[in-house]
């Protein structure tokens, strides 16, 4: 049930106001198809009588009711905006490779709010800030610890992109045997060298990437029936495979 006597955040109000204005513009645009003489809404300016309130974290507003004196006057002016201007002034939405900070439960609400205030809403934003050597602790009044946050976000990003093994090939040869692992998201963290253990022994990882691993193995370490391969691709991801070697 909608409530009329509930305070609202300016951001939510503006979202709805823009939606209403867009709806009106769309209707007028449809009208323009059939009528030669049509008009477009160029600017809308809304002056409202409101009472602001502050709960310690957010500023919210409630509209003045009949008989209430001393309301604040707030004017919101919306002008026309072209699609090119939207592209210039709007942030790209969070992509599927990225992680929005809102979706990471381990980050407390205060930290999320501090990050939003400095324009950081995703892992990529945080990386961009770090690349430019911005002292994020200073920018957020010491509310955000970069190292701690980076770990949480990397963990969340890894959780969204689990490793997926599709094929494993044994290449047995006298000059040197290898295991080829193919799949998706096998290694994602470029700052960490993956570790591979084959049948309990540290194996030689010769090449690695997002979609493949090339592991040098000693033929003498191979078992006839079952072989175990463990890959630690980053501090948050370990995957273990039981492999049967079938001679063709």
């Amino acid at each position: 049930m909608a409530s009329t006597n509930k305070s609202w955040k300016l951001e939510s109000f503006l979202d709805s106001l823009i939606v209403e204005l867009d709806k009106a513009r769309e209707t007028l645009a449809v009208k323009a198809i059939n009528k030669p003489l049509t008009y477009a809404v160029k600017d809308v300016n809304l002056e409202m009588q409101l009472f602001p309130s502050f709960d310690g974290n957010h500023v919210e507003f409630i509209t003045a009711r009949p008989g209430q004196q001393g309301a604040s006057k707030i004017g919101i002016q919306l002008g026309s905006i072209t699609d090119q201007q939207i592209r210039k002034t709007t942030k790209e939405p969070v992509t599927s490779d990225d992680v929005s900070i809102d979706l990471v439960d381990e980050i407390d609400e205060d930290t999320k709010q501090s990050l939003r205030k400095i324009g950081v809403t995703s892992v990529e934003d945080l990386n961009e800030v770090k690349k430019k050597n911005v002292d994020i602790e200073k920018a957020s009044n010491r509310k955000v610890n970069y190292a701690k946050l980076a770990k949480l976000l990397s963990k969340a990003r890894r959780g969204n992109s689990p490793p997926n093994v599709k094929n494993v090939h044994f290449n047995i040869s006298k000059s040197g045997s290898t295991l080829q692992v193919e799949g998706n998201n096998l290694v994602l963290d470029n700052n960490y060298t993956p570790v591979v253990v084959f049948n309990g022994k540290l194996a030689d990882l010769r090449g690695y990437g997002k979609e493949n691993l090339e592991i040098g193995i000693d033929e003498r370490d191979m078992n006839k029936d079952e072989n175990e391969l463990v890959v630690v691709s980053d501090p948050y991801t370990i995957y273990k495979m039981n492999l049967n070697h079938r001679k063709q």
Partner: protein
Amino acid sequence: MNDDYLDEDFMFLSRFIEDMAAVDEVLQDSYMDKAMTMNIESMETRTPCELHIEVDENNQVRIGAIPPLYYVETTVMPVFHHITLKIVKEK
């Protein structure tokens, strides 16, 4: 109640703006046996309005508006907000 209305008194702000922009009439008259037509190039209007702002269970804000129901001075006057619209003819 149809989709244009938020409740029995207030229409959605979009509908309110659409109605305000409905000036697509050509004025016709004749002078010295010649037909003359005129139309509006642009119009700016500032009008008081009553607003009805409600918050639903998902914290979505819904905005309703109507022109003032009456202007007569009463003991408890309704709150008048103001809306200014600039409407231009599409080329």
